[in-house]
């Protein structure tokens, strides 16, 4: 097993690193320095814990999904309820941490990219909470399919900028956020929302999201007195997955299963399953698996879920993939929507379309486990934001 820490330049094995224009090198080093100091400062930990407990509402419950378990005939399924966090997803864990870092850096403005809108909402929320200015970049296509979250961000006082380049989704929003950052370094902190991008972001985001795994591990030991057979999470950039995986990496008997977006099937341009259809490349500051053509041009992606609709994946996942410590698989749109419905009807929980991929994988693969095995699914967010998208998707299916 490789060390869980990246090296000083942010390499996870052959992945990660800092592939950015020179202008960003010093700001990234400054962020790394401030983070290192904060990590060793008990006052920072106390402050972070305070906001996570009193504002976010942590710890989030680990719910025994009794009816889902019965329906599938085992394994015993537990749901880590990140959907119950303030703002409705795991994204807030990282945002609160980064906003506190931004304050230490003396920055007065937060910017963010967002796909499904959950990270944008979380950033707009933290900006309101800490009295900072906020601009969120969002692909125009995503703004249309996640209109509710656009309204939420604007209500929170953030400016939402529509990105009209390329396929107008998450990747283009990241490009645009980086361009803003490089132009406004003096007063602005870029709150990257996933365990991706140049070092130190994959490490910082992983660390702030590791609270999910730490809680879940403690909770399952308390509830069952043993470790799960598997931990399952959806993987877009990979922050909710790395957050819950990180606590179990050393528990070698625990399978770590990352579920990517299979979209309409593994055909170039129709999915976002980077491990199934990608190869190693450099995109947006880091080296990882990338969906690209032979010339290194980034391919279009598709997923019913905006949060998974992205051409690359966090570098630590790339390393976990290669070392075999984690397994990566995918679920197609139709199964993800079915997973959404099933969890809604079995447990009274509307999962986000992203999380529905993890749910659907367990529904389809329950037979891999013994009846008495335990599995934990990370319900990374709630699905309220997705109801219109799902309704339209279903309408599209019925008229086909």
């Amino acid at each position, binding site marked *: 097993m490789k060390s869980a820490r990246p090296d000083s*330049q942010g390499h996870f094995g052959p992945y990660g*690193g*800092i*592939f*950015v*224009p*020179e*202008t*960003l*090198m*010093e*700001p990234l080093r400054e962020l790394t320095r401030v983070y290192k100091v904060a990590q060793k400062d008990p006052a920072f930990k106390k402050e972070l814990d305070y906001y996570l407990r009193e504002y976010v509402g942590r710890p989030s419950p680990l719910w025994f999904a009794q009816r889902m378990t019965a329906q599938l005939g085992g394994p015993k399924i537990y749901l880590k309820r990140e959907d119950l966090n303030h703002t409705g997803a795991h994204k807030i864990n990282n945002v609160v941490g980064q906003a506190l870092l931004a304050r230490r850096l003396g920055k007065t403005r937060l910017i963010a990219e967002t796909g499904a809108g959950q990270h944008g909402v979380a950033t707009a929320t933290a900006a309101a909470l800490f009295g900072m200015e906020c601009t969120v970049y969002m692909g125009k296509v995503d703004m249309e399919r996640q209109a509710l979250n656009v309204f939420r961000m604007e209500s929170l006082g953030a400016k939402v900028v529509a990105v009209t*380049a*390329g396929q107008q989704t998450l*990747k*283009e929003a*990241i*490009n645009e956020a*980086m*361009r803003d950052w*490089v*132009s*406004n*370094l*003096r007063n602005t902190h870029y709150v990257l929302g996933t365990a991706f991008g140049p070092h130190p972001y994959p490490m910082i985001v992983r660390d702030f999201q590791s609270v999910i795994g730490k809680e879940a591990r403690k909770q399952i030991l308390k509830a069952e007195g043993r470790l799960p057979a598997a931990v399952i999470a959806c993987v877009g950039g990979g922050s909710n997955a790395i957050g819950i995986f990180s606590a179990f990496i050393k528990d070698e008997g625990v399978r770590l299963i990352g579920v990517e977006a299979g979209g309409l099937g593994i055909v170039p341009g129709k999915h976002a399953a980077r491990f199934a259809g990608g190869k*190693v*490349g*450099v*995109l*947006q*500051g880091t080296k990882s698996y*990338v969906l*690209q053509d*032979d*010339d*290194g*041009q*980034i391919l279009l992606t598709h997923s019913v879920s905006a949060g998974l609709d992205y051409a690359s994946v966090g570098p630590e996942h790339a390393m976990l993939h290669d070392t075999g410590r984690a397994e990566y698989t995918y679920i197609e749109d139709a199964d993800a929507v079915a997973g959404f419905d099933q969890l809604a009807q079995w447990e009274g929980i509307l999962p986000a379309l992203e999380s529905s991929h993890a749910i659907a994988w367990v529904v389809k693969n329950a037979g891999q486990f013994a009846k008495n095995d335990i599995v934990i699914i990370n319900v990374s967010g709630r699905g309220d934001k997705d109801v219109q998208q799902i309704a339209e998707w279903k309408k599209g299916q019925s008229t086909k």
Partner: protein
Amino acid sequence: MKKTRVDQKFAALKKQGKKGFIAYIGAGDPSLDDTVDIVLRLEEAGVDLVELGLPFSDPLADGRVNQDAAARALEAGATFDGVMNCVAKIRERSQIPLIFYAYLNTLYARGFEKAMNEAAAAGIDGFLILDMPREESGPYRKFISAASLNSIVLITPTTPEERMKQIVKDASGFVYCVSREGVTGVRDSIAEGARGLVGKIKGHTRLPVALGFGIGTPPQAAEAASFADAVVVGSAIVNKFHNNPHTPEGRADAAAFVAEMVKAVKAVNSPL
């Protein structure tokens, strides 16, 4: 390493006591055949060196003008092979120094060593790789010099002086000084502090220093040339060629726009 056309050009400029003018265009915008025509016209307009943007789908250091140029090139079918072919065609008719402005993934996908060798064989003189900072360049740098190519490096207003010293050690050809924090694109004025930054760089290297990012008018070009060894103009030129009709007249008018800026730069006397 043998002298590239870039090295020779800067040596000649120094001898003449003149400042250099570097033009950036996106390769393949609006087509690779047009790129051959445009480069020849730029040379006629007095441009000393052309930076060819190797089109990439996600050019995060670029402003909208150059992003759109890359998108148009890709849309028109500019592949890596096509661009190499285009360079070879330029070389049949011109010995103007040519460098590639590139993002790493397009080279990585090709195989970095192979990309360097193919570019050199086509007639390229150097590379400026936007998203390959010094820390990550270790495995790649040797292939640039092995192909007898210049390795152009970026220094920006955020680069600390200690780091600047390290960066210029790896450079050849010239040092590209980014005048401001931000992406490429025309601005109203030359950034304050650019003069000081160029001076600082010159304290650490004998290489010529070119100033770029945000320059787009004859007075700005002249101002930049008063303290830098060369001036880089990109978006303004890309814009002009794009907005003009793609006819001989439209091209000639765009070339005349460039010639005005070249003239302003050449009017600046350089101490020998």
